[in-house]
């Protein structure tokens, strides 16, 4: 962001500062139990586990950041000298020292009664087989080495650095997605009539040593080629006529679509199930994206609409529901959507006059109300209390049973495609413009003729309808609904994935869902730290890249426009003084 510290620190002070931060981070991970749990996940078989990899990344990063050139404003950045290596090493050595001291402390005092994750096993593992005292030494030296290495990345040219960093990142990613990629790879190999032996790439739940080397070399080579030639390729693409570019884009989309259609054929049912879940979250994300991304209304109770969709489906479809009768699906679907929209508008109407941050809290309150009511004895006769509603019959569409995970996946995929199309159309329409205008400046939008209440309700209602659609799939998928499925964390999850991808961006929602829903489902180690990760993602994104990973062009501009504004302010100050209070 625009606020940067202008304070000049000496390199040694900087090294100490980042060393301390890195040290705190290195202690943090074992203390909250991440190190221990993540060590169940192999990165490179027999060489590196995920938990330990975190230490390495921290030490590397500390060195890298310390060595980063810090020019004074207006000065050319000076390339870092060999001294940078020294300071990088110093920073990570400090971090190593702190971690070592922590291990020493934990070895001599039993911290377990308070810090439940600091077990004997953890300490043993952190001591690398030796005594705790030797661990201190190892950590200082190892830290220094890694820190120098990280700083070294600053010394080499950008052309070399980018491929190195990206190769490391790719190796990590390919290793982490082992459960998915390995299954696909095996299937592809066996269908091609080859032996489905993948040990040249994967072993023991992560990359094998050969695999790691292979991936590193290939990505490095590929990226090196791209850094030298990439701009040429891009320029060539840009020079093509509009028509051709559209065709290339369309072709890519089509290929991706075909791949998604084909995917379940080669996946185990476990993976197909995860894919279905990701699809559901994409659906939810697209719905909330209209409310938050387009219209700028921060709705923290979005799960309520998922619940409305799920429960109304269950009530009308299940013969075991309290109604005692059941409707066919083709009647239930529109009915559910109508109910959800009406409820959305009813909730929205009183609170939409409020300022954005109030709205957030009120919707959060509504989400909680929904949960409390569903769980209460009062509503139990109708909604089944904690036992939920069972016996949701599987729908059939043209004789195809949707309960089957594969068929359900296709149904969800089709729904996602339709909803994404609708979102896209909306974003470039009169309605979309009105929403955008409202998000940027409510009062001015109103002065330009946009009915604020009307358009807020429209956004809220549309979001509610789409949310209930996901709820319906949710109920069908499980065959039952329980109140515990609809807790606040779902809302937070959806919000986090939208923000990660970039508010208002449709591809952002899709990527966000894969990263924040797919990955944790795939890697069960992540499961219990999911919320911790969400929290960290939200905070660091807002601090570093508020527009998200795949920003819509507008959003990016909106969040980086301050500089121009400041300049304006200065200009204004020279002119006539502004009228106070009301401007």
């Amino acid at each position, binding site marked *: 962001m625009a606020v940067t510290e202008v304070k000049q620190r000496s390199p040694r002070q900087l090294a100490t500062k980042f060393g301390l931060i890195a040290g705190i981070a290195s202690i943090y991970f074992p203390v909250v139990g991440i190190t221990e749990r993540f060590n169940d996940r192999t990165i490179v078989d027999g060489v590196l586990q995920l938990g330990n990899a975190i230490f390495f990344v921290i030490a590397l990063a500390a060195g890298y950041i310390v060595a980063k050139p810090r020019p004074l404003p207006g000065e050319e950045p000076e390339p870092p000298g060999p001294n940078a290596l020294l300071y990088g090493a110093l920073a990570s050595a400090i971090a190593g020292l702190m971690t070592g001291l922590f291990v020493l402390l934990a070895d001599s005092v039993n911290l377990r009664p308070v810090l439940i994750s600091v077990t004997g096993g953890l300490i043993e593992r952190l001591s690398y087989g030796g005594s705790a005292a030797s661990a201190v030494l190892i950590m200082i030296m190892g830290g220094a080495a890694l820190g120098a290495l990280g700083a070294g990345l600053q010394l080499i040219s950008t052309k070399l650095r980018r491929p190195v960093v990206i190769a490391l990142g790719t190796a990590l990613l390919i290793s982490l997605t082992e459960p998915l990629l390995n299954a696909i790879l095996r299937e592809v190999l066996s269908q091609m009539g080859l032996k489905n032996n993948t040990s040249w790439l994967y072993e023991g739940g992560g990359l094998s040593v050969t695999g790691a080397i292979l991936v590193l070399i290939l990505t490095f080579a590929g990226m090196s080629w791209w850094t030298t030639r990439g701009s040429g390729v891009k320029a060539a693409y840009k020079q093509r006529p509009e028509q051709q570019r559209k065709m290339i884009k369309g072709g890519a989309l089509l290929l991706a679509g075909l791949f998604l259609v084909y995917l379940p054929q080669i996946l185990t049912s476990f993976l197909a199930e995860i894919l279905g879940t990701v699809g559901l979250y994409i659906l939810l994300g697209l719905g909330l994206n209209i409310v938050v991304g387009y219209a700028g209304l921060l709705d923290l109770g979005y799960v309520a609409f998922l619940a409305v969709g799920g429960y109304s489906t269950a009530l009308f479809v299940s013969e075991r529901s309290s109604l005692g009768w059941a409707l066919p699906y083709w009647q239930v679907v529109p009915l559910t959507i109508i109910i959800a929209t009406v409820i959305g508008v009813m909730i929205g109407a009183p609170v939409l006059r409020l300022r954005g941050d109030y709205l957030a809290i009120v919707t959060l309150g509504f989400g909680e109300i929904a949960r409390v009511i569903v769980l209460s004895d009062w509503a139990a006769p109708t909604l089944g209390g904690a036992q939920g509603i069972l016996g949701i019959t599987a729908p059939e569409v043209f004789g195809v049973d949707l309960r089957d995970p594969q068929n359900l996946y296709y149904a969800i995929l089709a729904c996602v495609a339709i909803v994404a199309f*609708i979102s896209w*159309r*909306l974003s470039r*329409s*009169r*309605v*979309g*413009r*009105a929403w*955008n*205008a409202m998000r*940027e*400046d409510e*009062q*001015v*939008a*109103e*002065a*330009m*003729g*946009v*009915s*604020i209440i009307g358009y807020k309700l*429209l956004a809220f209602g*549309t979001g509610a309808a789409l949310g209930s659609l996901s709820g319906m799939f949710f109920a069908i998928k499980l065959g039952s609904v329980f109140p515990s499925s609809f807790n606040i964390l779902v809302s937070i999850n959806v919000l986090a994935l939208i923000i990660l991808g970039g508010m208002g961006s449709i591809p952002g929602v899709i990527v966000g869902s894969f990263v924040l829903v797919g990955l944790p489902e795939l890697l069960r180690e992540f499961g219990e730290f999911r919320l911790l990760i969400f929290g960290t993602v939200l905070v660091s994104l807002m601090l570093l890249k508020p527009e998200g990973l795949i920003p819509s062009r*507008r*959003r990016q*501009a*909106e969040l980086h*426009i301050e500089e*121009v504004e400041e300049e*304006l302010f200065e*200009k*204004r100050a*020279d*002119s*006539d*003084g*502004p*009228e*106070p*209070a*009301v*401007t």
Partner: protein
Amino acid sequence: MSLLEIKGMTKRFGGLTAVDQVDFHVDEGEIVGVIGPNGAGKTTVFNIVTGFYDIDEGEMTFDGGSLIGLKPNQVTKRGIARTFQAIRLFPAMTVLENAMVGQHCRTRAGLGGAIFKGPRTIAEEKKIREAARDALAFFGKRLSPVENELAGSLSYADRRRLEIARAMATEAKLLLLDEPAAGMNPGEKEGLVTLIGRLRDEKGYAVVLIEHDMPVVKGVSDRVTALDYGKKIAEGTYGEVAKNPRVIEAYLGARHEETA
């Protein structure tokens, strides 16, 4: 009957009477300048007319219909559009999109239209685009060539111009301009004087402008109204108002030096 007719407009904030029994009118095709020291209640009058504040006492009619109780978007639909003293564009939308938002109140496509994009929606979208481009074209080569740039990236004077273009795109009859010359250099101010004149002569707008810059007020106004402490203290041609002792006192009087 005048286009805009205000009788006895009064607005209080707590104990402070920001606008006190103001009578005011604008005829069709007329340019009226509103002057007065800071805090005289000029912008508050705009805010009341455009529906941002409720009126406490008094009447206001536009084109024969009462404006009382209308929301800002309804006022715009009746045919009054405004600009803001501190420029308020939609900075992250393109120049063209900004102007297209102005067309909002003259068009109707809703959710269904957006999703299915039938012939009517397509035709309407075309109309919106054309009207917006027309409004931009009024500023010659200033805005049209950059219609796909983000509004936030425009120069200061161009932002002021785009605000006016956006107001024009609402197809209003009356434009309320709040300090359009603020922050402009002398050359740009001269251009603004010509431009406001063209607004009336070529497009037939009635214009009310709040302005501190006296040459600008003098250059464009058919009539000038002066406010001080929420009260109207003078009205007439620029020459008459400028000579009015109460106006001179309001601007130069000792009591204002403390508050200025």
